[in-house]
């Protein structure tokens, strides 16, 4: 016999379903007046420090069709590379930037868009610096457990080349699926759920 570890099991995930908007972005579902605004819709104000950028793209299924009912969340460091979180012990992040955003894909075009700032670099556990990146979490009808991925910046070639996580992806041919192309102030980042050019998803 042996002592029990006594750990609980994580609640199993279930799909967000087609009506995720009601709970998470209610104005998108046509529900007005319950909350003042959809949470996470606006990430940046006039006092936020950092370079203004937009991140836009689609979430594409195995038939090549963009999802029109997906929801994405992003989590990122501020311009100085600090997270606005109690678990951030390296310093105090920009109080004018929460680092978290939430957007649905458009019901007609399937396009999502975040207006944010470009994050600074943060360390890997061994102290090496990671390339600037944004963490993404994608849910939708038909997605049984939220998908975790990251977006890196196409104009950060030197940082990307030394990024500890990108370097441990064995199939180098897949690395470009994590790198967004820059066009002016906008980064284009399509997320491909399966088949050709399937985005790298992470088990974090």
């Amino acid at each position: 016999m042996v002592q029990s570890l006594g750990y609980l099991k994580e609640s199993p995930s279930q799909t967000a379903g087609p009506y995720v908007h009601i709970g998470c972005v209610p104005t998108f579902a046509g529900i007005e007046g319950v909350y003042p605004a959809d949470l996470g819709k606006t990430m940046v104000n006039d006092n936020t420090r950092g370079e203004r950028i937009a991140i836009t793209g689609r979430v594409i299924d195995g038939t090549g069709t963009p999802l029109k009912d997906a929801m994405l969340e992003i989590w990122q460091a501020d311009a100085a590379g600090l997270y606005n979180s109690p678990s951030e012990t390296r310093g105090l992040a920009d109080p004018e930037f929460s680092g978290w955003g939430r957007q649905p894909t458009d019901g007609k075009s399937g396009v999502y868009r975040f207006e944010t700032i470009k994050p600074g670099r943060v360390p890997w556990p061994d102290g090496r610096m990671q390339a600037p990146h944004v963490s993404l979490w994608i849910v939708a009808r038909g997605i049984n457990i939220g998908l975790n991925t990251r977006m890196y910046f196409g104009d950060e070639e030197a940082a990307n080349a030394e990024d500890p996580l990108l370097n441990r992806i064995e199939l180098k041919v897949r690395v470009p699926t994590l790198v967004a192309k820059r066009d002016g102030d906008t980064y284009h980042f399509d997320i491909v759920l399966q088949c050709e050019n399937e985005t790298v998803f992470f088990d974090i």
Partner: protein
Amino acid sequence: MRNSPVETGAFFPRDREWHPKAYAPGYKTSVARSPNQALISFGNSISEITGPTFGQAMLGPLDNDLILNFAKAGESAIGERIIVHGRVLDERGRGVPNVLVEFWQANAGGRYRHVKDNYFAPLDPNFGGCGRCISDEDGAYVFRTIKPGPYPWPNGVNDWRPSHIHFSVFGSGFAQRLITQMYFEGDPLIPLCPIVRTINDPVAIAQLVAAQDMANTIPMDTRAFKFDIVLRGRRSTLFENRMEGN
């Protein structure tokens, strides 16, 4: 509640056998929306162990009362009045304080207030179907609503969703992010549902079934259901910050 230090540990690995698989052909929509390639695993960095926080200040007084938060003055939503309460815990059994819990659901007839839902059951003019709250220092949360109705959905020719409430839960780190669904004790549709059946282990399914809680039921008023939510646990950082050779 003890004065707990700031949580900076990495998360327990996710048990991917316990969760539903991405590809679950009984739930047809998952077929074209599931990655084919293996997930790439890596230990948590600061990007995964940190996460957004939300303060009580953002909540309105009716945010956790779905009976009233969309209703006209003096009116209320139609249906069985229920309280749903429980704790947000982590795998270590500790309450997780200050986490945002959001919920959404169909009305008593099984109809969602959403442009994509065209089921025959009528909308309730006094029911929106969304609510939210933030867990207290012990991880406890509570809200009041009406019991959602079951409804048919296009998957197999005769598939019905059991009564359920969708939950979106934050933790203290972005890697804890979770969306799941709560079912109701005794619902005969639970074992038939293709979405429930994306979960393989019956013990895992049972973890999503709220128990009727007569102790917390308000007599002559509102029935209670208890639903605890478990998020990933964090490792102790005691030896992880001690560099070799230092």
